[in-house]
């Protein structure tokens, strides 16, 4: 869960925002004049939910390596790169789905692993190395 207030602090500093969102995610949120606070909060909540699937102690959250993008149909899709992809492989986490919801002042997300719909490989889904 991410309160919108926390995001207000982040978006006021571009360098800070660039540490938690990838360039592609930042492009998603700057199509309008005002930053999409609920949208960013939802993404951050989803990144944290995905990270918790990896069950790794003593690791920092690889914010930019867990990208929450948008499918053509509008639903969120997870793309893992770099350390995030490696942590998922080590945790034998396959395809990941997330669901994001918003309330008046915060966003919440849930992430779960599901059998890989494409049956591509035991560990492959949207991961890129």
């Amino acid at each position, binding site marked *: 869960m*991410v309160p919108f207030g926390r995001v207000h602090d982040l978006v006021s500093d571009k360098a800070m925002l660039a540490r938690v969102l990838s360039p592609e995610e930042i492009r998603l949120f700057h199509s309008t004049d005002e930053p999409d606070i609920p949208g960013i909060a939802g993404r951050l909540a989803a990144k944290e939910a995905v990270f918790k699937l990896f069950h790794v102690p003593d*690791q920092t959250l690889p914010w930019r390596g867990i990208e929450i993008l948008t499918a053509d149909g509008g639903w969120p899709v997870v793309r893992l790169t*770099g350390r995030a992809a490696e942590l998922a492989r080590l945790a034998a986490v396959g395809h990941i789905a997330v669901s994001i919801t918003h309330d008046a002042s915060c966003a919440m997300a849930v992430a779960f692993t599901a059998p890989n719909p494409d049956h591509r490989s035991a560990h492959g889904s949207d991961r890129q190395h």
Partner: protein
Amino acid sequence: MAVTGSIDEVRDWILRRHPERQTIDAEENLIQTRLVDSLTFVELVYVVESTTGVEIDFDNIDIQNFQTLATIEKAFFITA
């Protein structure tokens, strides 16, 4: 290289975010006590960087350096 700020500035920054607290022991685990969560951690790294003038490679952070104020001080404030 001389470090500009002091660990007290980091302690004060954390305390400003936790008005329910008056002090933070140097050995108190900041993460286990939830004084610092994953989002605050991003900002904490930023505070340590701006306080010390040292740039931290955000993608290769050793989280052990951020467990307590003492470990932060040892890793970033005490120069050899």
